[in-house]
């Protein structure tokens, strides 16, 4: 009976539901699967794993199934799910926590393009304190984003004076780097 859950649970000694509850302060068991979150989810048509599925799989400790699906990475963080949830669950926050789990461990398989985008984005912030959009575009494409997409539009963006060519570094770069380092360090702790 119980062996089924155990064989699929890669989250170590702490069950996934408990782990998510610890991270979010929200009880995944609160989800009663009404589907209102998924009904309003803008990406419901494109994903195989909708918000209520995510909540269910968390409650059932199915980290394996969550890892296989694209839903987490297609989430737009629009929070429609959370704001309409009748029972005070927070699917958006839950998905944040799951992304965090996957980002930290090796279970996560975000689609290449999306992962590359987020990585590039954070690199920009880590290195400059602010987003350097031109740098983001370059680094995203080198880091695994579709190479030729938007190539045609970039010049027009430049023409409108929208893209700066040189990054602006904040003065408190030390602090920004420290924040990144400290967060990474704290997250690394069990």
């Amino acid at each position, binding site marked *: 009976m119980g062996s089924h859950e155990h064989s699929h649970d890669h989250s170590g000694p702490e069950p996934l539901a408990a782990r998510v509850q610890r991270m979010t*302060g929200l009880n995944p068991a609160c989800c009663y699967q009404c589907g209102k979150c998924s009904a309003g989810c*803008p990406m419901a*048509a*494109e994903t195989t794993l909708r918000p209520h599925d995510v909540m269910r799989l968390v409650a059932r400790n199915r980290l394996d199934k969550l890892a296989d699906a694209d839903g987490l990475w*297609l*989430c*737009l*963080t*629009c*929070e*429609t799910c*959370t*704001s309409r949830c009748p029972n005070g669950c927070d699917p958006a926050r839950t998905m*944040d*926590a799951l*992304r*965090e789990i996957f*980002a930290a461990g090796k279970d996560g398989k975000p*689609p290449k*393009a*999306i992962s*590359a*985008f*987020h990585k590039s*984005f*954070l690199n*920009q*912030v880590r290195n400059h*304190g*602010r*987003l*350097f*959009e031109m740098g983001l*575009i370059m680094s*995203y494409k080198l880091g695994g*984003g579709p190479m030729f*997409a*938007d190539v045609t*539009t970039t010049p*027009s*963006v430049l*023409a*409108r004076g*929208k*893209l*700066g060519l040189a990054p*602006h570094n*904040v*003065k*408190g770069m030390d*602090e*920004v780097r*420290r*924040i*990144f380092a*400290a*967060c*990474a360090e*704290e*997250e690394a702790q069990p």
Partner: protein
Amino acid sequence: MKIGYFPGCSLHGLSREYEESLKAIVAGLDTELVEVDDWSCCGASSAHGSSHLLGVALPARNLAIAEEQGLPEVLAPCAACYARLASARHEISEDPQLAGRVNNVLVRDFKNTVRVRSILEVLKGQIAGIKARATNPLKDLKVACYYGCLLVRPVQVTGGYDDPEDPSSMEDICKAAGAVPVKWNRRLDCCGGGLSMSRTGSVVRLSAAILKDAKAAGADAVVVACPMCHSNLDFRQKAMKHRGAWEGDMPVLFLTQVVGMSMGIDPKTLGMGRHFVSTDSVLARTAGTGSGSGTGTNSAAAVAGEVG
């Protein structure tokens, strides 16, 4: 009135016209924006999707600086920045443990006293001033006010300055500027947000549905208060057409530009020329701008010519 100001990366980059128009209108509204010193990126969805602590600490750094500057409240015009800053404030106030961790990471004595305001919240408080200064009311301009996801929800984070399901502040502001808000259905739908670059197909699907609904409701333009929404609805119209999801040209304006136009501010100052979809049709409808100055790619000179 003095208020702290967190521009955010986009307002210094892709959406600089948002900042240009904002600065142009606040001058007329007796409001002074005090920029947060040496502000850094709020982390956007990339940060909180990879580390919860990082997603809170990055915005908290900016709130801490504002607090040190003695600013009781900070305006974050970008809806995404607003959501991150306001969420950070909310989460820190709800969770003393998190507050401690954030202070450890920041190495600052942050007391979380700064209130975060959205552009709607701030302009809503200035409606009388907007009305009074609307020398060029946008009489016939039918606008579809688009809120998107993060401006009015979740209500715990926003503090409920507007109804999360039936908001009205943007319509009220547009009305004060003389424009006519249309009644439409998709003003709270998501445009596709941060997937613009990484998954353009989804953005095209979602944004096209929004534009179609606005058009069906008879709107001349869509009004937004978010750089990301603007980029998806304006810049991606080309991709939408390319993929056969959308016909026509729907001008997409920042709310601050709408207010600015009503004040008779030069379209160039408002950065109307920086849009991808021409705003000429809008400028034509709101004839009365006496400036006649060129607007870059738009043929505003021609617009001005038509006035006479």
